[in-house]
């Protein structure tokens, strides 16, 4: 292994590489959850959406590569992953807005249903190799192979980063963004303005699930780049905590995603320099980090600054 030649430099390099790779699904899922929660609903089911997105992207990329060629097929997969996410989002959006139906419980049900459906349909695609998304080699200037491989940036990462200012602008400066915020903060006044709460929340949840589906596609078509039944490993749920940490701000979702992507890379980075003893404990780092952040930022006395007013309340 050439990693030994790098010595301890392998650790920060590994973390950098892991941050760029691992933050992509976090970014998409947290932006999707951010949009959903801005409208006043929680979608825990994004975990299932992520799995469904990963599976459908992989399956479509594999099946379509013979038809449209291996260059275009993964992009078709990304699109279908988003659409599959929208389908699950529509179920969640409709069901969680029925009277007396709790959105958290619906989310748990959607995790089981979405995950089950992904595993059901994805069974034949565990073995075959699907064409992967291309990467941009930002590390071509370096002669060190580790630097080159660390700086292989996914176009999905850039796409996600591009969504951030777009969503920020959407919330701040557009009429539709105002509708979403009004419905999330004060459904009563939104109703008085003549806005359909049902439609706005439905649209927010469906679009949020579209983003989460793309996040799933990044798992199976970029990193780790395979389809397995446990590929999402709770990232869809951590998005909910991540959005709290990000105070429902798209820009902060980006920083939070980078932080979480980095935390996830700790175990593999230390393993690359031969420290294996605590590999599994390092794998718990993102979850511990989320928990610690929540303990530090939450308060029993008041609701959090930036929290949509109607979040978690019964209609």
């Amino acid at each position, binding site marked *: 292994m050439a990693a030994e030649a790098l010595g301890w430099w392998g650790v920060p390099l590994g973390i950098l590489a892991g941050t760029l790779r691992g933050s992509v699904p976090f970014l998409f899922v947290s932006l999707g959850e951010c949009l959903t929660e801005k409208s006043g609903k929680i979608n*825990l089911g994004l975990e299932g959406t992520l799995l469904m997105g990963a599976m459908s992207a992989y399956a479509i990329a594999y099946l379509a590569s013979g038809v449209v060629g291996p260059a275009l097929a993964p992009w078709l997969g990304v699109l279908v992953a988003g659409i599959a996410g929208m389908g699950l989002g529509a*179920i969640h959006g409709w*069901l969680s807005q*029925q*009277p*007396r*139906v*709790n959105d*958290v*419980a*619906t989310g*748990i*049900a*959607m*995790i*089981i*249903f*979405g*995950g*089950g*459906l*992904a*595993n*059901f349909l994805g*069974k034949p695609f565990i073995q075959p190799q699907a064409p992967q998304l291309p990467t941009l080699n930002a590390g071509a200037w370096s002669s060190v192979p580790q630097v080159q491989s660390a700086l292989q940036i996914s176009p999905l990462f850039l796409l996600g980063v591009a969504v951030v200012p777009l969503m920020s602008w959407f919330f701040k400066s557009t009429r539709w963004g105002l509708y979403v915020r009004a419905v999330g903060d004060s459904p009563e006044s939104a109703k008085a303005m003549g806005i359909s709460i049902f439609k706005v929340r439905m649209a927010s949840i469906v679009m949020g699930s579209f983003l989460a589906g793309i996040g799933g596609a990044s798992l199976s078509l970029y990193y780790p780049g395979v389809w397995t*039944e446990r590929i999402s*490993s*709770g990232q869809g*749920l*951590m998005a*909910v*905590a991540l959005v*709290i940490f990000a105070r429902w701000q798209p820009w902060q979702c980006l920083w939070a995603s980078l932080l979480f992507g980095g935390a996830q890379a700790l175990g593999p980075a230390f393993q690359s320099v031969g420290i294996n*003893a*605590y*590999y*599994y*404990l390092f*794998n*718990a780092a993102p*979850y*511990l980090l*989320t*928990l610690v952040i*929540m*303990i530090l930022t*939450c*308060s*029993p*006395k008041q609701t959090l600054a930036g929290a949509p007013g109607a979040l978690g309340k019964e209609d």
Partner: protein
Amino acid sequence: MMSTQSWRRSLEAVVIPAGAVLGALVIFGIFCALAGANPFAVYGSIYKAAFGSWSAWQNTLLRASPLMLTALCTALPARLGLVIIGNEGALVIGALAATVTGLGLGTALPGFWVMVAMALVAIVAGGLWIMAVGALRHYRGVNETISSLLMNYIAIALLNHLVQGPMRDPSFVTKPSSFEIVQSAWLGNLPTTRIHYGLIYGVIACILAYVLMQRTTFGFAARTAGGNVRAARMAGLPVGKLTLAICFLGGSCAGLAGMVEIAAVQRRLNESIVSNYGYAGILVAFVSRHNPLAMVLVSVLLGGILASGGILQRSHGLPDATVMVFQGIVFLCVLFSDSLYGRFPIFQDRPARISTGSSVSA
């Protein structure tokens, strides 16, 4: 509230969940048909594999017993208005604590007492695990659903760390595992069956939970606090202590489930302990509307569905995730059915009261 219901309301409480399960069966049938299997043959196979013979019944009951225990981990805190989904983590921690105790005591005590110690330590460990979630909720305002879920992953990471390293039995090569519990401390089977005593534990725990919540002042206080925290505080109820106690009890049940799985089924600790009994327990709790007695029945039904996973694969060529899809459909249908309470005039005492349907708590 339950006791003052008229027979019409009681009928509603039976017909609506039953209708939801029936609706789920129909949707699942359509799903199977789309997947290229004959839905009626699938129903038949599920029935045969779940309840078709004494042997099938034993398989079903074996799977039902951990479900009863893990479901309590969600159902008890739910009476306080908390949505806790840390069942899997508490089960893992219970299994871990039981294994450490069992291996630590070894043959220092008679087998029976080793088993008792394992159970007690598992109960306390699982209880403290979920109590921490309750404490974070009460004292720091941390969302209990998310914290309990994160703790599942932390528990599984801890399990993996220990069985891959410090606790690993190097002579056992199939998969990284701990050493085996001494045979004298294994949990036995009910006479003439393959069903272990865990089933009895599950049934007793559900009955105790029912009595505790419905027939004691403690349960009344918890339900009051669950209905309206502010009113409960005004009435002088110690909401914080109630939260901690209920969470401890819920977690201890899941912890006991972990001990039962170790002492009766697995015998040694490894990743197989993470077998989705925790998540299925959440489903049981919601389907039975957090009523512990209904949970016994629902656990048996779901145990049957879980037991039929193998035959769906062998006889119908459906992947094993079919069972998970079915669970998801049942869960979604049951949640939808919650919105139907009070909508059917036939279940109302006086038709004029239809508009007050929102007084039926979800």
